[in-house]
């Protein structure tokens, strides 16, 4: 999923609904193309609405980039589970993954746009978070 070209910041989309996560990822691909490593995850371990740490860890691995990974989340549990997943990462990766305080769809698109221009992880996060500023 992550294109080899990319030293760009990876984007992970985490929603309670796999359909929302996948749909947001489709929008990112259509609007930003393949220049950005991208992965999505949604649903609990039984496939119902919810989020799960294992799925988030897998998505981070899929979207991994040396420049880091920005995670976009929807509601509370998605955020808590994402923060938990970040803490469970190997230490050398932990500091290069951030959870953005941003709306999931708009945040993912703007974060990916910023990333596709080669911006740093901090700049990607800042752009996404401007929605709530």
């Amino acid at each position, binding site marked *: 999923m992550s294109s080899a070209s990319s030293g760009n910041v990876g984007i992970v989309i985490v929603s309670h609904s796999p359909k929302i996560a996948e749909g947001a990822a489709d929008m990112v691909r259509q609007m930003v193309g393949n220049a950005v490593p991208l992965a999505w995850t949604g649903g*609990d*371990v*039984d496939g*119902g*609405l*919810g*989020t*799960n*740490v*294992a799925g988030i860890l897998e998505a981070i691995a899929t979207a991994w980039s040396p420049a880091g990974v920005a995670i976009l989340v929807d*509601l*509370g*549990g998605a*955020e*808590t*589970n994402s*923060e*938990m997943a970040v803490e*469970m990462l190997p230490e050398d990766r932990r500091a290069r993954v951030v959870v953005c305080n941003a709306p999931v769809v708009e945040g993912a698109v703007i974060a990916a746009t910023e990333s596709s221009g080669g911006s740093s992880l901090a700049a990607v996060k800042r752009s996404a978070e401007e929605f709530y500023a």
Partner: protein
Amino acid sequence: MSLDRVARDKLVRALAASMIQHAEELTSLDQAIGDGDHGLNMKRGFEAVLAALPGLADKPLPEMLKAIGTTLVMKVGGASGPLVGTFFMELGKALPEQPARADLVAATDKAISAVKARGRSDAGQKTLLDVLVPVQTVLSEGGDGNAIAAEATRAAFRTIPMLAIRGRASFLGERSIGHMDPGSRSVSLLIGAAAAILEREADS
């Protein structure tokens, strides 16, 4: 306090039973002010914990608690997984294999701090912390298993008139008032189950 393998096995089964038997009640509490999946989520998590027996009870107490925590984090889903899971993991990290009461007091204090940090919350916001914090006070003041279990139940009921400030119920604003916090109820059940086992072990 010494928990041998048999006691550890009983403890795990009692914790799991408290969640599995009350899954419907927890779900209906969550339907009132959350998204209605809390009972199912906790049940799924503790079924996974049960599935780790008998090997789980072979582990020394700290390792067993950490393993329970990790399983809950991975399986529960929702915010409760990381919150309750963090509590067990931190308890495991802080407790010695044969804890005295002072160890339990210190370890629960650390574990509660970790839950506060994970949820960026504190007591008074209609969350599981509204049970954990007062129960820890009773524990630190020397209360026995019965006193601890009773305080856990009372504390969960005290969340009914509270306004939710953190968690999903906070979306409801004042409409969250008048309903018991599901996370508080599940934690009070877990504490009740653990207290009953520990009290029996203390007597034996």
